[in-house]
């Protein structure tokens, strides 16, 4: 099975968040871009499937300028991916998600066969969660999001998985090829070993020119990026005994915050 995982470079969770000089996007000066959250879990899922289905290969693809993509692609290689493709684009972070999807689709189609295409549920920065469905549509692949417990049933030659949604857990099956948005997050995905990290530093990255981010007629333009004023801190409720604390809180939620039914 040829498994392609899309990994997005996102600012390190610990990095300080502030707006750029024009106030239109997050400031990226000195910010380190890393493989994070759901995408790290998507790589873990790909590696688990490769283990379970002999002969499988895992390919990582990332779109953006090399200054951001190369770090995450090397991280994916160090974890055990077989190859890595940088879809080179001058798109800014939090670029138009549809332009990103079209760029990814071109790079994926040019790279070679793809039986299973994996995405994170949403990226930790723009949280669009729509690049997966858009890329799949551009490639003509069916797409299912919010997926957990993905397995391959070799006997039936089908993927079996669940979709964890508002009203419960759905069971699904599908032949290949398929594109999937993964909601699964492993608290403890594997970590790369030092030799693997050193090897990944020298590993070749395939490069594909994905063109400028504005290759789509209909695009979106970031106008403003703002941090909310910091919350003032809680109004601490003074109380004599637990009963009185409870009735005060309920009254405040009702009359002041107007959230209590």
């Amino acid at each position, binding site marked *: 099975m040829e498994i392609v995982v899309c990994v997005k470079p996102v600012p390190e969770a610990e990095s300080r968040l502030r707006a750029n000089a024009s106030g239109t996007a997050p400031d990226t000066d000195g910010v380190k871009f890393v493989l994070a959250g759901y995408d790290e879990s998507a790589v873990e899922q790909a590696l688990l499937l490769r283990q379970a289905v002999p002969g499988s290969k895992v390919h990582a693809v990332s779109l953006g300028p090399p200054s951001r993509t190369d770090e995450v692609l090397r991280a994916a290689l160090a974890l055990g991916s077989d190859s890595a493709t940088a879809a080179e684009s001058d798109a800014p972070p939090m670029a138009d998600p549809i332009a990103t999807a079209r760029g990814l689709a071109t790079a994926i189609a040019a790279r070679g066969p793809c039986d299973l295409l994996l995405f994170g549920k949403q990226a930790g920065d723009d949280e669009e969660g*729509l690049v997966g469905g858009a890329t799949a549509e551009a490639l003509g692949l069916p797409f299912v999001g919010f997926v957990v417990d993905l397995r391959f049933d070799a006997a039936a030659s089908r993927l079996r998985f669940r979709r964890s949604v508002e009203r419960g857990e759905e069971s699904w099956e599908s032949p290949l090829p398929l594109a999937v948005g993964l909601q699964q997050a492993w608290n403890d995905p594997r970590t790369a070993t030092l030799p693997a990290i050193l090897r990944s530093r020298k590993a070749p990255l395939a490069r594909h020119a994905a063109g400028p981010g504005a290759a789509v007629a209909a695009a*979106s333009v970031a106008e403003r990026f703002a941090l909310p004023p910091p919350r003032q801190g809680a109004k601490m409720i003074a109380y004599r005994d*637990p009963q009185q604390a409870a009735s005060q809180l309920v009254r405040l939620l009702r009359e002041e915050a107007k959230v209590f039914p």
Partner: protein
Amino acid sequence: MSDVVLVVGEADGDGLAEPTREAVTVARRLAGSQGTVLGFVAGRGASGRAAGFAAIGVGQVVVADDPRWDAAPPAALARPVAAAASNAGAFAVVVGGSSFGRDLVGGVAVALGASAANGVTEAERIPEGVRVRRPVFGGRATEERRLEGGRAVLSVRPHAFPAAEGPPTSLRPEPAPNAEPAPAQLAPARTAVAAASRGAGPGLADAAIVVSGGRGLRSPEGFRLVEELAEALGAAVGASRAVTDAGWRPTSMQVGQTGRTVSPQLYIAVGISGAIQHLVGMVSSRVIVAINSDPSAPIFRVADYGLAGDLFELVPALTAEVRRVRGS
């Protein structure tokens, strides 16, 4: 300039799901008083859902009455929705912010050659298209974005807008154009649905109230206190990673960086310290209440109301008070 907005209807039983009614509110604002809001429904019983649209005043509904859509993934509807939107000359397609809507937006945008945004909390018509506002970075920031090019596809963040109400109107259904499903899109099939595992509570992601518990509850039995409060409030139950890592409750309940992101009207954190990895999953909640014995716990910095004290005394009292005022 077109003034038609298409809303894709999600089923909830025989009627329309709440997120769809929120989407109708946004669509009405975008269309303006002179504009038209058009519904779209697919699947078996689509006519029932079409009636759900008419009940809230959306009479013109495009219907793809084909049972094959029922077992198909939401994204499979991308092309029929795009076809209906272009047929009607719609300048915007709006969907609710549930998993159904979020799975659909990207595909519709590509099929339609439109721009797109998920999880918007504001949407405004401008000459270039639609301007949206949305929380990003786990609610630590907001962005405003202009969706250009004449067509925009967006999903609405749950609970950010009121659900549309009537007055009802008469239903004028019309068949969906080009609604023949492509075989590839129908390949994934839903084989079973199990209702949310933890009893009657609403799903975490779309609940209006979430009560979450942390290590402060001390044991799996202690965690019952949180569930009892949630039950009294009709709320969903969440947990910190300390709780899920310890195996007190399943990981599906985890809120935070490696768990779920929630943004309910009311979030009550019980015995949770407020580590940054937990905060990113809940700071965009409208009102936050924290109960913690340590008055310097970081959770109090993001909370609106704080009770510093022993949760084993405070939570049962709160549960009793909620039951009392709700008359049960």
